[in-house]
């Protein structure tokens, strides 16, 4: 089963939830994998401290023009909707950063002058953190497009009953790429207006992709009218709330130093228990109960 941990808003605790659930469920003997799809700012390795066994570059196929064959007919530039290949009177220029690797220019070239060559955009690392299978992607700095790296991560075979995919923040193409094909999404939010607004965007996205979802509220301070009002608004949203993790200095300190919180703060592990039960039940049933 593939579970995406997403949020809309950044910094709500996606990585915290993903790494700790992976840790707790692996400790119970499940075959668990953790995949860091936040390839722009990957952080999962800081907490899981995996031993990396394999590392390989991710390449995006970009066109290469053989100048002897090129007749400067301009059909490639006409075919490219991204302005990534431009036919000038003397030569044809390729802009790899703009290329979406669709293969359109190659198909359009009547002279057979265009071939493709891999161009490095990032790295994938694979290894183990205890019994947890670890897979992490990292986008090279200056590269604008992360989906090819995320795609590479998702194409890497894993042997696990439960795969946690740690998503990037936001709601646009990198998040869509992470969510595609997932069995369920756990949406992590925080009890603030920003958290709620961005959660609503995330809910709209998972709904558009027909992926069942549940919410985990992080950093909850239960007393006080503002929180109760906030929770009232949360309850109007069409998703079940699976956990409310309290704000705590012990949790914040364990996080800031890069440890697995559940290992050091028992109350945190306790808060995640209901989520674990529900996930295990979903595995047994082979499906997720919540449907849109």
């Amino acid at each position, binding site marked *: 089963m593939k579970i995406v941990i997403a949020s809309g808003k950044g910094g709500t605790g996606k990585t915290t939830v993903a790494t700790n659930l992976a840790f707790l469920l692996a400790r119970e003997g499940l075959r668990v994998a953790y995949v860091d799809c936040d390839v722009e700012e990957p*952080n999962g390795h800081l907490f899981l401290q995996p031993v990396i066994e394999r590392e390989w570059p991710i390449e995006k196929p970009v066109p290469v023009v053989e100048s002897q064959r090129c007749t400067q007919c301009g059909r490639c530039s006409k075919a490219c909707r991204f302005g990534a290949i431009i036919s000038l009177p003397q030569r044809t220029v390729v802009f790899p950063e703009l290329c979406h690797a669709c293969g359109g220019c190659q198909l359009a070239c009547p002279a057979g002058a265009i071939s493709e060559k891999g161009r490095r955009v990032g790295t994938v690392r694979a290894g183990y953190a205890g019994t947890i299978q670890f897979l992490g992607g990292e986008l090279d700095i200056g590269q604008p497009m992360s989906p090819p790296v995320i795609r590479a991560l998702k194409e890497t075979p894993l042997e696990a009953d439960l795969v946690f995919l740690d998503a990037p923040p936001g709601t646009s193409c990198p998040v869509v790429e992470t969510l595609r094909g997932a069995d369920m999404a756990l949406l992590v939010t925080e009890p603030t207006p920003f958290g709620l607004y961005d959660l609503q965007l995330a809910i709209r996205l998972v709904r558009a992709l027909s992926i069942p979802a549940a919410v985990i509220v992080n950093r909850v301070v239960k007393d006080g009218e503002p929180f109760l009002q906030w929770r009232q608004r949360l309850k109007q949203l069409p998703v079940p709330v699976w956990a409310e993790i309290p704000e705590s200095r012990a949790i914040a300190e364990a996080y800031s130093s890069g440890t697995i919180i559940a290992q050091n703060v028992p109350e945190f592990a306790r808060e995640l228990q209901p989520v674990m039960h529900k996930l295990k039940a979903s595995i047994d049933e082979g499906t997720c109960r919540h449907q849109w």
Partner: protein
Amino acid sequence: MKELVVISGKGGTGKTSLTAALAVLSSPCVVTDCDVDAPDLHLVLQPQTIQQQPFVGGRKACIITSTCRKCGKCVELCRFGAIRHKKGDAECEEGGFLIDALACEGCGVCVDHCPERAIELRPNVNGQWYLSRFHGGYLFHATLDVGSENSGKLVTQLRRAAHEFATKRGVPLILTDGPPGIGCPVIASLTGASLALIVTEPTVAGLHDFERIARLCRQLGVPAVTVINKADINPETSDRIANSSIRYGTDVIGMIPFDSDIVRAQMAARSVVEVSDGPAARAMRAIHSTVMSRLEKALDVHSGEFITIDVTQIDNVKSKGVTT
């Protein structure tokens, strides 16, 4: 005219809270919310919209079912798996073909190679952008439809509109709230800015992500300074960030202590400097005056200057000489 871009790498470090405070303190100014994926600034600035415009971010393929002979050529050629054709796919007619709009990148390969010319590229409205007024000035903000592409393009469009507007009105300062990450919308937010303000937090993740965004600023040639939020929750890691920022030439110009007034202000839909005189608000005021003096020495931005550079053409920016 100067432009300050508030950026962070890691999400949730306090970009928007700090931007809102700077916006109120810098009045009159033009503010741009470039976190178009998850925009939150309007929740604090409570603006009134003056103008709204659709954002056309590229095109999407569309199959004309009456002409389609179901040959399957498009499925074979599409590299994005954007053509659905499975039998039993409820939304596809029996044996029919359908474009998955969330997967389609608008490359047009299917359009160009369909033997029946049964596919078209149609302009795709995938967001709205707004010009609004708030009590400290004007806000340019946008909403991108969920699951959309081209967030970088929308960011560029927003910044362009803000630059033109600020130039016309003679407003000397543009404040830009950037998105998290280091990818396309971040590059689009940073390119050509006078100064970047990196907001980070003293956690291992904050430090790791700080280094990546600092390197991106350097690569793009945008000078940067650093602010550590919640600096007191882990002084040791704050020191490590400070050391690291010396290495990257993005010195720490302020530290904001942990202060529950920040969340309280957000709950009240106000900027923290308007409702509090606590440690965080005081730190933000000090950061404001330091940033303003740094901006005086920074380069001006000119309306339209960065626009000729496509957001994703970093190679070209570096090598110069190539324009689109």
